[in-house]
Structures are given as structure tokens and as C-alpha cells.
């Protein structure tokens, strides 16, 4: 029983390690170069999963402040702290209600002086980091596929052992 508790308490780590190992296996064991790159992508995605999972908090929501949350907080400071709980249920609230506009017709921006409790929101930093990591992953995959294409043009195959044979035979 204790064994299951150990696993379930940290299941996100277990899952990311398992996915990562699947990717690593494909990178090492597969002979087809596109399959290797798929493995590489899985490997990178596992790390993205790991990062996103460490930003999760119990009972927290996505780290976005709706307009009326800020708005409500600005005008009614007395119950500003609870405002965001109501508003998450009612997204349309933000479009209703009259808000001030500046000279260009855009809503005036108020400094969000509503009291925000960090525990109510998932950690946004890891999401931002992973946006960058996703871009890096896509770029790596793109370069990898481009090189595979070049290999196919030059050797006529994307099986690694066949390319090695071609090189050994001096063609």
C-alpha cells in the first residue's frame, strides 16, 4: 500500500520520467531517422509536462485576471479580494458594464490594486518558460527534419544502417 502512496503522491514525476524514457528509447533504438526525431520530440515534450506540472496548485485557476475583477477591485475595495472567485464563473461579465475609455476609445487601464492571493492561481512563470521551450523544440525538430531531408537527397535513404553501409562501401 505504501508503494502506491509513494507513486500516487508524485505521479507527475513518474509520468514524465516514463514518457521521457519512451522518447530516449526511440532515439537510441530506432533505425529510421524520422522515428528518432519523433522520439526526440517525445523526450522534449516530457520535460515540458514536468515543468507545467510543477506550476499546479490545489484549487487554483489559470493565472488570468479578468477585466471586471480589476474593475470591481478598483471601485469596491471592500470586497475586492473575493471578486475573482465570482467572476471566473461569469466570463461575459467583462463585456457588460460601462467602462471609461481614453481618447482613442480603448478602455482606460487601471493599476490592478485588487488584492490577489497567489495561492488562487497556478504559477504562470513555468508556462512562460515552456512557451520558449516549445519554440526551441519546434526549431530543433525543424532542423532535424531538414537534415534528414538532405540525407535522403544525398543517400536516397533515411535508414541509419543503410547510410552507414553506403559510406563504408565508399559510394
Amino acid at each position, binding site marked *: 500500500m505504501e508503494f502506491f502512496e509513494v507513486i500516487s503522491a508524485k505521479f507527475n514525476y513518474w509520468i514524465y520520467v516514463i514518457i521521457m524514457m519512451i522518447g530516449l528509447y526511440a532515439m537510441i533504438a530506432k533505425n529510421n531517422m524520422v522515428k528518432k526525431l519523433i522520439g526526440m520530440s517525445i*523526450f*522534449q515534450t516530457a520535460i515540458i509536462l514536468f515543468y507545467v506540472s510543477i506550476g499546479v496548485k490545489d484549487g487554483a485557476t489559470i493565472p488570468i485576471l479578468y477585466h471586471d475583477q480589476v474593475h470591481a477591485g478598483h471601485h469596491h475595495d471592500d470586497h475586492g479580494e473575493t471578486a475573482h472567485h465570482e467572476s471566473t464563473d461569469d466570463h461575459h461579465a467583462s463585456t457588460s458594464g460601462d467602462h471609461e475609455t481614453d481618447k482613442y476609445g480603448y478602455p482606460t487601464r487601471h493599476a490592478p490594486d485588487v488584492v490577489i492571493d497567489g495561492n488562487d492561481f497556478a504559477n504562470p512563470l513555468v508556462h512562460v518558460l515552456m512557451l520558449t521551450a516549445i519554440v*526551441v523544440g519546434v526549431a530543433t525538430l525543424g532542423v532535424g527534419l531538414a*537534415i*534528414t531531408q538532405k540525407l535522403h537527397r544525398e543517400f536516397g535513404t533515411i535508414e541509419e544502417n543503410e547510410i552507414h553501409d553506403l*559510406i563504408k562501401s565508399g559510394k
Partner: protein
Amino acid sequence: MIEQAPALILLFPFFASIIVALAGIRVPGVSFPLTVISMFASVLSSVAVLVRVMNDGVIRYKLGGWEPPMGIEFRIDALGALVATAVSAVGLLAAIYSKRQVPAETGDRVSQYYTLYLLLMTGLLGMVITGDAFNLFVLIEVSALTSYALIAMGPRRASLAAYKYVIMGTIGASFYLLGVGYLYIKTGSLNMVDIHEQLIARGIFDSTAILVAFILITVGVWIKMAFFPLHAWLPNSYAYAPTTSSAVLGPLVTKVMIYVMIRLTFTVFGADYTFGQLEWSEVVVWMSVAAILVGSISALAQTDLRKMLAYLIIAEVGYMVGGVWLADDIGLIGSIYHIIADAFMTLCVFLFAGIIFAKTGKRDLNALDGLFTKMPLTMVGFLVGAFSLIGIPPTAGFFSKWYLIQGGIASGNWEYVIALLVSSLINAVLFFRIIEIAYFGAKPAEGHGDHHHAESHDSKISEAPLSMLFPLLATAALLLAIGLYNKDIVAIIAEFVSLSNLGAILP
């Protein structure tokens, strides 16, 4: 302007890369001058930063005015400024060399090549000056992605080597990213200095998560720097890449990764943790001994000039990793000095290899047959580089080895000292073999029917053009200068080493 110098170090090549990418397609002629000008401006900025760091101490440049640890900062201390200067100088010299070779080897893709080249320099310079662990990951990948492409622009086998590099490099960078994730969980920070302060403030050095982070980051960085036994991607990549690519990747990528290892070891984890708490110095020094011996002996077995030099890089990586893990301040000084010296001597010999390839079209050592009389200046430049790799005074290579050996003796790691001496001996054999071929001529071709072939070549081989000769001779002169002014450079390095707290933790 001087206030912004830290950012300008990498903004010059970065913006130049965008201009080259846009304008170079229509007017390929602008690519080369723009590259050289921006690299020159980058060198000037690095020198300005180095001077400022030496006068006023550490520069903390806050990007966008956001206060660290929330904002990203460039944090440049004496070590960072010194390495940035060396990196930008190597980038400039290799760029000058590229003038004729890039059109010759990449055909109509000149502007694309220079775009990648400038982005590579942006990534490498950024790695040196950034003070943010995640920013470092992005810059590692910027430089890695561009180097994959720079290698893959070579002939057939280069593509296969580049593919292997993609796979290995991605594993390395991913490990690093994962390690940073564990550090973030435990400290809630990504700023390198702040991570270290948090580690101390929270007293979590005993935590397993920190240990895991340390292992992941170290192994990731080792893969990227081709530390034996994680070196498999390197030899073919550098041997078959276009000559300009190997002239810039060979000296820089591995050396900058060693800088990153030093930065992470001393700034993020701290010497107390790495050498005091973990007792791995012995093991890592033995690994570096293996790296030195394997690299040197493999180099001895090569007949391809650039492949031989690539194996020498693996041995040199062993020198530097070992020097850091001796956990001795003199060894650390030697390691950092060797980063600078090795960047220039590797550049020197790779430029030489590139010139030989451009002139003779051959890759193997016999291409050097009797070149002393035909291209004397090129050979002089090469001799300085070779003497430096062997470790003959007064070249830079002698002084770095001197400090490394002193560090090895002071910390009692005799196996490291012996490996260094054996490797120097092997280097001597390697380079005197080349000198012999170049001076006295190769042995008569043994039934290869090579004779008339060689003679037809003979007539048209002459001294290398100025665009190739200048960087080679300038590098040779710099090697001598670095050697002769070793006291001043060591003074800069000592500034960093004295802060590293190494002396305090050793018995």
C-alpha cells in the same frame, strides 16, 4: 553608448544577422562586410566591458530595467568579460577567413550561411554574459541549432554527422533544462546568483533534488562539450563541416561550454558544495585523464588532418574539465587560461587546415607534402599554433599547461600530471610528423599512382591569399602575445578565482 556595451556585445551580431538575412538574398555582396563589421564592433564592446569590469567590478545589466531576480540580467565579472573578448575575437578572425571559402563551399547560400554564423556568435556571446539559468538554456539552443545547420552545409558525410549532433545535443540541452527545473522547484528562482543565495538561505544543500539537479546539469553540459565518453558527436562533425564552420565551432563551442560549467559550478552551486560536500573530484579527474589519453591516442591514429585536430579538441576538453575538478586555485587558473589559449590555438590550426583544404583540395596529411617552400608564411602561422598545442614556451599553450600541471601537483593528482605530459608528448609526435612531411616531403607514393597527380598540383600551389593569411598570422601573433602577457591575463583570472572560495574549503 558605453553604458549599453554589455548588451551591444551580442546585439551587434544579432541585428547584423537580421539585416544579412533580409538584404543578403538580393545583394549577397553585403553579407561578408556586414559580418566582419558587426563582429569588429562586438570585439570593441567586449574590450570596453573588460576594461570597465577591471576598473569598477562586476557589471549587472538589467534587461528592460526589470530588477533581478524577476527580470533577466546580464552579469559580467572578470571571467565573463575575458571569455567574451576571446570569443568575439575568434569570431572576427574566423569571419575574415571565411571571405573566399564560404562562396566556394556553400555556393549560392552565402547570405544564409552568414545569418547562421552571426546567430551562432549571438548565442555563444550570450551564454558567456547571461546571469539567468533559463536564458542560458535558450542561448545554448540558439548556438546549438545554428551549429547543426552550419555543419550540415558541408558535403555528404557532414549531414550524417550533423544529424548525430542534433540527437546528442538535444539530449544534453534537455538534461540541462531538467536540472534547472529541479533547481527552480527548490529555490523558486532562475537568476544564477539568486539561486545560490536561496540555496544557502534555505539550507537545502543536503536535498536529493539539488543533487539530482547537479547531476543532470553537469551531464547535460558534458554532452555539449564532448567530454569523454560523451564525445561521439564531435570528430565527424568538425572534420566534415565546411572549413569556416569548423574554424569557428572547433575553438568556440566546447570552450564556451567549459566556461558554462565553471559558471554553474562556482556561481550557482558554489565550490563548497561541488568540491566540499560531494566527493567526486577524484572520479572526475580520472575521467578527464581518460579523455586526455583517448583523445590524444585517437588523434595519433588519424590520417585526416581535420579529424586529427577534432580528436585533439577532445583531449583539450579533458585538460580543462580536469583542471577545474582538481579543486585547486592554481588548477582553476590554468583551466580558465587554457580556455583562452585553446580558443586561439584551435582556431590557428583549424584555419591552417582550412587553407590547406582550399589550396590543395585534399584532406589527408600527405596534402602537406613540401609546403614549406611553397607557402612559408602559412607554415609559420601553423608552427606557432602547433608549438602552442605541444606546449613550447613562449606560446600561450606552455603557460596554461604550466599552471595546470602545478595545480595537479599541488592537489596531489599525479595521474592528471602524467596524462598531461603524455598528451604533450603525443602532440609533439603528431605535429613534428606534419612538420616533417611539410619540410622534407611525404614518402614517395606507394603504388597509388599518385605521382603525376601530385605534380600537376605542385605547379599551382602558392601562398594563401591575404584574407586567409591575415587571420592565421594574427592568431599566431595573439598566441605569442597571450603567452608573453600571461601575468596580466592571470591577474584578470585571479580576480574571479579569489572570489570562488576554493582556497577556504581545502585542507
